[in-house]
C-alpha cells in the first residue's frame, strides 16, 4: 500500500518534470515565432533571406541575412569536415589500438577540453590562431571564416571523440572475435565490423557536434572578425549567432525585430538539421 502510493507520487513528479521540459520548448518556439514573424513580414521573406546586404543602421537600411546564413552553413560544414574525420579516427585509435596508458591520458585531456568554456576557445583563437593565419597567408587581418572554422572544429572534437568511443566500446566483443576467426586482420575487423556496428552512435556524435557548432556564438565573434561580408575563407565574416549576440544590446525598432527573426531562422536551422540527421540515423538502425 505504502509502496503503491510512493510509486504514484514518483510517477506524478516525473510527469510534471516532463511536462515542464516540453512546456519550455513550446514556450521558446512560440516566443521565437511570435517575435520573429513581424520583421520578416515587414521586410519581405525573400528579401530578408536572400538579399546580400545587412545595413540596419545606414540611411538606406537593408536587412538581408544571406551573408549570415551562408557563413553559418560554410562554417558548420567546414568545422564538421575537419572535426569529424579527426575525431572519428582518434576515437577508433583510442578505443581499439591505443595502449592503456595513452588512452587514459588522452581521455582525461579530452574531458578537460570538453569542459573549457567557449570564451576560452575564442580567446586562444584570437591570441594564437588569428595572428598565425595573418602571417601564414599574409593577410591584412587574420580574423576570418578560416579562423572560425578551425576554432569550431577544435570545439566539437571532444564530444565527437567521446560519443564515438562510447559507441565503439559498446560493440560486443563477440562480433570482433567472429571476424578475427574468419581470418580478418585487426584493422579490417575494426573498420568493417566494429565501426559498422557503432555507426548510429557515431552519427549521434555528428548531430551533437553539428548542433554545438551551429549554436556557437561567443567563440566565433572573437575570431571571425564579425563583419557582415558574404563568406569567403580569408575574409572577416559574421554568423547567424554572432549577428544576434553582437547587435542585440544596441538595436531598436525594426532592427531589433529583425534580430529576433534571425534567431527564428537559426532555430529552424537547428530543427531541420536535427530532424534530417535523426531521420537518417533511425533509417540506418532499422536497415
Amino acid at each position, binding site marked *: 500500500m505504502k509502496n503503491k502510493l510512493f510509486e504514484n507520487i514518483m510517477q506524478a513528479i516525473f510527469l510534471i518534470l516532463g511536462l515542464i521540459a516540453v512546456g519550455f520548448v513550446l514556450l521558446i518556439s512560440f516566443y521565437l515565432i511570435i517575435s520573429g514573424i513581424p520583421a520578416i513580414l515587414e521586410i519581405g521573406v525573400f528579401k530578408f533571406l536572400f538579399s546580400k546586404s545587412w545595413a540596419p543602421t545606414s540611411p538606406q537600411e537593408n536587412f538581408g541575412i544571406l551573408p549570415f546564413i551562408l557563413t553559418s552553413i560554410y562554417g558548420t560544414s567546414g568545422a564538421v569536415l575537419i572535426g569529424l574525420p579527426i575525431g572519428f579516427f582518434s576515437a577508433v585509435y583510442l578505443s581499439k589500438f591505443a595502449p592503456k596508458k595513452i588512452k587514459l591520458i588522452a581521455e582525461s585531456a579530452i574531458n578537460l577540453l570538453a569542459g573549457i568554456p567557449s570564451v576560452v576557445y575564442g580567446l586562444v583563437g584570437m591570441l594564437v590562431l588569428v595572428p598565425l593565419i595573418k602571417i601564414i597567408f599574409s593577410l591584412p587581418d587574420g580574423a576570418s571564416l578560416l579562423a572560425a572554422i578551425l576554432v569550431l572544429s577544435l570545439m566539437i572534437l571532444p564530444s565527437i571523440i567521446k560519443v564515438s568511443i562510447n559507441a565503439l566500446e559498446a560493440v560486443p566483443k*563477440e562480433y570482433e*572475435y567472429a571476424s578475427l*576467426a*574468419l*581470418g*580478418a586482420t585487426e584493422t579490417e575487423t575494426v573498420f568493417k565490423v566494429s565501426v559498422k*556496428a557503432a555507426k548510429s552512435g557515431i552519427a549521434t556524435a555528428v548531430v551533437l557536434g553539428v548542433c554545438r557548432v551551429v549554436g556557437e556564438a561567443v567563440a566565433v565573434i572573437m575570431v571571425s572578425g564579425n563583419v557582415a561580408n558574404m563568406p569567403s575563407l580569408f575574409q572577416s565574416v559574421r554568423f547567424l549567432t554572432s549577428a544576434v549576440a553582437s547587435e542585440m544590446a544596441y538595436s531598436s525598432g525594426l532592427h531589433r525585430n529583425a534580430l529576433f527573426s534571425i534567431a527564428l531562422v537559426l532555430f529552424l536551422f537547428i530543427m531541420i538539421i536535427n530532424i534530417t540527421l535523426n531521420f537518417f540515423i533511425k533509417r540506418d538502425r532499422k536497415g
Partner: protein
Amino acid sequence: MKGIINAKNLNLWYGETQALKNINIEIPEKSITALIGPSGCGKSTFLKILNRMNDLIPIVKIKGDIYYNGKDIFEKSIDVNSLRRDIGMVFQKPNPFPMSIYDNIAYGPRIHGIKGKQRLDEIVENSLKDAAIWDEVKDRLKKNALGLSGGQQQRLCIARALAVKPKVILMDEPTSALDPISTSKIEELSLKLKDKYTIIIVTHNMQQAVRISDNTAFFLLGELIEFGKTEEIFSNPLDKRTENYITGRFG
C-alpha cells in the same frame, strides 16, 4: 586417416595459473572429435589455441608445439590470418554480425579478396545450403541476421565459417544456448559436414558426444586424461577418472 592437428607436450598458462598441462593429442582428419570434461578443465582454452585466438589474451604463455598439416602454428613464418581461414570457429553464443544474412556470409570471402556479385552469390548460396539453412532464409537474404531465431543464427554462423572454405571447424559448445530441436539440427549438420571437414567440438552434453563424435578426448584440470574412439571411451574407459565423469560421479 592421418592426424591433421598434432599437439606435442603442450602447456599453457594464464599468468601464473597453468590451464593446460603437457597435452599430447593427434586429431584425425575428416572426423568429429569431441572434447569433454568438467567446466574449467581447459577445453575452450585448448580449442582457441588451435586457431590462435589466444593471441588476443596478452597474459597467455605457451610451451610446446601444435602442428597443423605438419607445420608448427606458433612459428614466426605462420600467417595467423590464413591459419584462421583454414581453421574456422563457431562460438558458444551465436554471434552473427548485425548485418544482412547475405553480408554475414559474404563477409569472409570479401575479406579474402573475392569480388563480383555472381561469385559471392554462389558462395552465399552454397554455404547456406551446406549449413542446412538455405530454405529458411533464401527469401530474406537482405534482412538483418539478428532477426533469426537462436538456432538459425547458429547455423548461419556455421555457414559463415564454411564460406571461407576452411579445413577444420572448431565449435565451442555450439548448442548449449539452443533448444532441443535446433540442437538436433546442428548435430545432423555436423554429421553431414564431417565428410568434407574436420570438426572439433567442445560439449557438456555426453549424449551429444556419443551421438556425433568419432573420437572423444576427456580433459580434467588441464590434463588430457584419455583420448580414443568414442565407443571405447564411453563403454570401456581405461582411466578411473574418465569412468567417474561419464557415469556422472563428478563434474
